């Protein structure tokens, strides 16, 4: 319950900051909405319509009111409303995010587990160095390289768009590879911590086989930092999709944001930031709830 209340506060803070950001810009907000070539009358009209001539706190309430109706303002360059535009694209980005998460987990967890169990061996060291490399690869490099290799040169995967499940593969890989590297390191250290603890030794002393110990006891506890990390991942993904969606032509929020950049469309960008932050808060909330469901001790603690 506390988590829920806290999330609301964070959400509110996010909205406040997004609102403030419009005004730190050393430009006339009316001009931002009206565009570079707006006439003085048009600007005055915009000011009246959006209430820019009113005191700041009143403007904030106007802003809140508009938000509640889903009105994020007009997108200058595209001539459509920001809110609906973002909303229609959100499912695509979410789909990509989930796929990326799967990539991260399916590659990262086995890799890290193996490294922990075979600690100190060549396999461990090699995989950890590989993980470090994976972390350092820029996605804006990996994306085009994968695209060139597997979609253009050898036409295994489609070169863009979101028409088929196959189209999801390359972007998800690009998005998830760095995270996979991170998870492998995370689970390795977490598992090593858990394996050194007393109750594991007790289980072994009782005669449980190694694999049973790992499966039944160790993993369950080692996995908790990973779950916490998943919540933080959402923030990372929503940044990452700008690059990945542009490179692969994936019709999500990121691509729209990239378009907004080249079209100099501040309303759209700010809208994307807001939607992104909201998504992050919600994702973290879901993670927290999952946490509570998985680990009853947390429930009692809180």
């Amino acid at each position, binding site marked *: 319950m506390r988590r829920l209340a806290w999330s609301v506060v964070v959400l509110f803070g996010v909205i406040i900051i997004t609102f403030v950001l419009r005004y730190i810009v050393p430009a006339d907000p009316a001009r931002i909405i009206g565009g570079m070539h707006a006439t003085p009358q048009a600007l005055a009209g915009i000011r009246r319509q959006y209430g820019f001539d009113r005191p700041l706190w009143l403007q904030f309430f106007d802003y809140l009111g508009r938000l509640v109706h889903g009105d994020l303002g007009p997108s200058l360059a595209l001539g459509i409303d920001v809110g609906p535009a973002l909303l229609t694209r959100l499912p695509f980005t979410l789909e990509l995010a989930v796929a990326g998460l799967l990539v991260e987990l399916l590659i990262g967890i086995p890799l890290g587990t193996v490294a922990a169990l075979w600690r100190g061996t060549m396999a461990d060291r090699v995989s950890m160095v590989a993980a470090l490399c994976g972390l350092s690869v820029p996605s*804006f*490099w990996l994306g085009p390289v994968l695209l060139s290799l597997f979609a253009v040169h050898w036409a295994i995967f489609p070169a863009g768009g979101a028409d088929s499940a196959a189209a999801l593969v390359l972007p998800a890989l690009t998005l998830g590879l760095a995270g996979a590297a991170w998870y492998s390191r995370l689970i390795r250290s977490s598992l090593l911590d858990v394996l050194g603890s007393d109750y594991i030794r007790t289980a072994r002393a009782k005669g449980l086989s190694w694999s049973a110990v790992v499966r039944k006891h160790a993993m369950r506890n080692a996995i908790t930092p990973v779950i916490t990390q998943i919540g933080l991942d959402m923030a990372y993904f929503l940044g990452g999709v700008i690059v990945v969606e542009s490179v692969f032509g994936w019709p999500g929020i990121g691509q729209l944001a990239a378009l907004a950049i080249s079209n100099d469309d501040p309303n759209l960008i700010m809208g994307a930031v807001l939607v992104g*932050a909201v998504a*992050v808060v919600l994702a*973290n909330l879901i993670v927290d709830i999952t946490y509570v469901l998985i680990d009853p001790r947390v429930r009692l603690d809180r």
Partner: protein
Amino acid sequence: MQPLSPLAARLPADDQEPAPASTSRHSVWRRLRKDRLALAGAAIILAFAAMAVAAPHLAPYDPTQRFVNGISDQGAPLPPGTAGFLLGTDTIGHDVLSRLIWGARVSLFVGVLANAIAVVIGVALGAAAGYYGGLVSSIIMRFTDIMLAFPVLLLGVALVAVLTPGIPVIIAVIGLVSWTSMARIIHGQVLALRERDFVEAARATGVGSTRILLRHILPHLVSPIVVYSSLGVATAVLFEASLSFLGLGIQPPEPSWGRMVSEGAAVQGASGFAYPWLLLFPGAAVFLTVLAFNLLGDGLRDALDPTSR
């Protein structure tokens, strides 16, 4: 995507203990010297730094100069090894090698400065929250939580787009959105340090709070600051390169690795690999730089706290 090196963007446990007593400078140095990966990282960083500093003398040509003979008769860029152009040219006739060398300047400059800003903000906020506790701590840490909700690259992109792209703006923006991880770490460290004997002793002798913070606590923060700075520079370099890739970074004709990658990706053509050197070299440069800082940061962390392996 990797606008940010996850190593620094992810948050470690808040309650990390400050390094134990086995951190005499001598033993740290010894451990570091044995860590071959960290040394490799340091070597790469030094190489790039030297490249950046010596750019005017090292680069064969002016990076913004367009060579008429830099494009083939069909208008295509020249591959590496062509006379006079060691790493080839791009579609406009620039020398790739020169642009790579000068690009190191930008990347390292922005990376180090942006990280410095993030460190200053993060340490100030984290230490204040950790030491003063109470309402101050609540406000600061809650603010940190709110900042964490924003997808960092998205926020950075938004800020740079709304202000005009330019080196100072980029440095400031990257610094302003990247301080949260450092703040959390320092917060945890100061919380633990606050309870130590020497702090009690100082307080008992009547030393003022600010003085305690600066003279007594800050020196103990040096090792986490150094470690996470290395990782932070990696993040910042990646951030700048991503911004440049999206067109928000260093503007043409100044060279920037990120933009070189985006330009390279755009011309690969129907075969997918028409001019691979345009894509591979700048990307490799970013990758190696980020990797080097990550290796060094990792090595430093292990050297300063060997129990963490």
